[in-house]
């Protein structure tokens, strides 16, 4: 939204960018759900926004996105987010000033775009990092524009307001760091102190969780409450298992023993097939994926625990129980 369209009348503002009142209320409802607030908060959020739209008429906050040792799954997931959609977010809410997967400019022009965004938004931009950081062999396992990924990360994080480590790789090292960690891959927080690093783990994470974190920052001017691992509480506050629709089967010891059993098709508990929902904090069983359409257990596959630290080693083999751990 440019300053010329700034208007205290929220409907006019939203209409000017093609958002109807209905869309807007839907958005507030979704935001309330994402933030873990009861539905009544939808209207309160709407009121709060109507009174003052923190991001209307002002510069859209700059977001820079650094892709290191990743599979681009976090980016893909981000583009699947529902409220706001990626188009809405990028055109009207944030200024995505650097993202190699989407940026029009390449090479030198891309580097210039990145540098000027860092200068102009010094101390104010949000840095999102996707992928792990390889450090062995002078960082040559990941280079961009002839510089090592580690250098890029240090440089880009220095002037950031805060850093979001998106996905399990950036949060904890993830797949590249799985045994035997051939490239000495590490998590993002090892390199950016004293900056705050918000972890949004998941392999990949739910795109809406990133969006909600950014929106929280836009609305309230601060980060959402974080847990001891710096994960947003609204998404990582509970174990998957606690909110799984199969939980009553778990309590009744109604278990699935094979992928071709009647119990499997009856929606019984997948724990014996290796489900790690009891040890995994994430929003999947409540928020679900792809516009709330589905999630792993909902469609019939055990939770692999993809948002937990070291799950690649700690929670594998996938279809086995975790030694020495029992669900609550």
């Amino acid at each position, binding site marked *: 939204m440019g300053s010329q369209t700034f208007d205290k009348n929220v409907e006019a503002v939203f209409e*000017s*960018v093609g958002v109807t009142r209905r869309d807007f209320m839907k958005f507030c409802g979704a935001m309330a759900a994402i933030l873990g607030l009861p539905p009544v908060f939808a209207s309160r959020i709407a009121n709060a926004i109507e009174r003052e739209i923190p991001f209307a008429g002002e*510069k*859209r906050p700059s977001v820079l996105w650094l892709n*290191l*040792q990743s*599979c*681009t*799954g976090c980016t893909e997931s981000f*583009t699947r987010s529902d409220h706001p959609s*990626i*188009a809405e977010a*990028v*055109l009207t809410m944030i*200024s995505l*000033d650097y993202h*190699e*997967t*989407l940026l*029009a400019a*390449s*090479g*030198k*022009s*891309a580097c210039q*775009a990145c540098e*000027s965004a860092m200068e102009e938004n010094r101390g104010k931009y949000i840095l999102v990092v996707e992928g792990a950081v390889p450090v062995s062999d002078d960082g*040559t*396992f*990941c280079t961009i*524009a*002839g*510089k090592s*990924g580690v*250098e890029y990360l240090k440089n880009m994080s220095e002037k950031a307001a805060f850093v979001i480590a998106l996905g399990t790789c950036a949060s904890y090292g993830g*797949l*590249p760091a799985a045994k*035997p960690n*051939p*490239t000495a891959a590490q998590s993002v927080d090892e390199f950016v102190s004293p900056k705050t690093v918000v972890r949004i783990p998941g*392999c990949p994470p739910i795109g809406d969780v990133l969006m909600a974190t950014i929106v929280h920052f836009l609305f309230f001017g601060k980060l959402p409450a974080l847990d001891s691992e710096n994960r947003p509480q609204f998404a990582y506050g509970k174990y998957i298992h606690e909110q799984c629709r199969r939980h009553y089967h778990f309590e009744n010891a109604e278990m699935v023993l094979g*992928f*071709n059993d009647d119990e499997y*098709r009856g929606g019984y508990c997948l724990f014996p097939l290796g489900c790690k929902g009891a040890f995994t904090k994430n929003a999947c069983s409540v928020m679900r994926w*792809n*516009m709330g*359409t*589905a*999630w*792993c257990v*909902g*469609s*019939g*596959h*055990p939770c*692999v625990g993809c948002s937990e630290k070291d799950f*690649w080693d700690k929670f*594998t*083999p*996938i279809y086995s129980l975790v030694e020495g751990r029992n669900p609550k």
Partner: protein
Amino acid sequence: MTRLVIDPVTRIEGHLRIEAEVDSGLVKKAWASGTMFRGLELILKGRDPRDAWYFVQRICSVCTAVHAIASVRAVENALGITIPENAQLIRNLIEAMQYIHDHVMHFYHLHALDWVDVTSALNADPKKTSQLQESISDWPRSNPRYFQDVKDRLETFVDSGQLGIFANGYWGHPAYKLPPEADLLAVAHYINALDWQKSVSRFIAILGGRHPCPNFLVGGMATAINPDSDQALNASRLILMKELLQEAQDFVEKVYFPDVLAIASFYPEWTKLGEGLGNFLACGDFQLDGPKVDDSRRVGSSTTRRDPVDKAGNMFFPSGVIWNRKIEEVKKFNQEQITEYVSRSWYTYSDGSTDAKHPFDGETNPKYTGPKPPYDFLTVDEKYSWIKSPRYDGKPVEVGPLARVLVAYGMGQKQITDLVDKSIRQLGVGKEALFSTLGRTLARAIETVALMDEIWGWYNKFVVNIGAGDYTTANTEKWEPSTWPAEAQGVGFVDAPRGALGHWIKIKNGKIDHYQMVVPTTWNASPPDPSGQIGAYEASLVGTPVVDADKPIEVLRTIHSFDPCIACAVHVHDAGKKKIKSAGIMP
């Protein structure tokens, strides 16, 4: 002579660097380098083969289904597992929708800005854009008011001075040839496609739990079907799938395909540029006759197995090899002919040899010998990439949509042949126009339309099966490792959106002993082999005009026409200790 460097190459998956020598405005020589490495095959060694798909799926989550499918196929091939028909159908449905999703997103979000000047759309007359829209299809969003609205939004965005992902683009470059009205049309569809993709991805999530990274299973699919439950795939999910298919098809037929043809018509010179090798390979995919994996495909100790994708004629995309543009002479594809060199890549073979190795016998160790960062130029006369050099019968080939379309055309596959003929007629060019940058872009759109039609058949069959009470999605007879032979080996192929993909696995005592992958972008982006034969990217760039070395949009057009996926292309083979004769894999 100017040395051109493009790093990072954006609007691709992963980390790619292009260096080129430009003389008198033309590329004389080019080098493509993959600059990121993770070492997945090393990580896989010693793990449970049933887990492999989950690991390799993270090679790349853009084409997020294909490595997982290749992996479960390789394991099933090794263990002699036949999957139920529903599982085959679900895999086809997921893979086909992945193609459609991927190709549309590639065109609008990764490739279009090479042809579309976003800022020029601000000069468009929305009424004329509306007329243009109505002349190319009956897509309902064609009202002048709609395009006025898009233009207004774009204006607001540009006036804000915060151009975000469009900042510093090559806007105003003389290579942009579209009239402003077509630019506005494309910008509108760029935004529409962003919304469309998030919606149609739900189709995959229904079957696989989420997208990206849907779930798979060795022996079938982990998709619970039960029409009498609200916790499984039931009629309500099936109707949602149908609606999503329709939504996908409308966009493909009324927006994507007509847009590709319309935009291509303004760039006729790009049907003559960017050809590359003239050699093409397709491994084929989408089995049509159900999952009849006969016993002759058993591996383990048996040596009478046939290659799982070598039943030409029963796949929607046939397999085959074309040499020197000879479309009418499609040769049989035989995976035995695949080998890989590392002579110009940052790896070594422990025997010190520079010979190529078949993926079953191959082994590689990463050893970076490039310049210490920060560097200005790579040492392109030595090793210069994390990407290796696969060769077929000793020669470089191109893989991907163009290879598939040409092979299908050569073999007379009807849907593809009809679409190719129709498209080139509409563009007023001959078949030779396919051997080009735009040929690749057009082939991608053609196969999307063809698949979009075909997918309905799989969907209908799936519904019929469920109606007949068949809810089986997994064969669990060989789920327990105790049922496996002590040693087994297998191969799985997928002709992925970006091209032919193979996974080779050796299983020993229930664990992965050896895992190797030969990946589409590795074929296309490979450095030269010891005899100096270059790969498809480097070949296709020779002769490319570059008007302004600081704004090398022409180079990007050709590179993007391949749809690079660099995370896929870079991988390392583990050193399998015991050699199992690869003759066992002969067709």
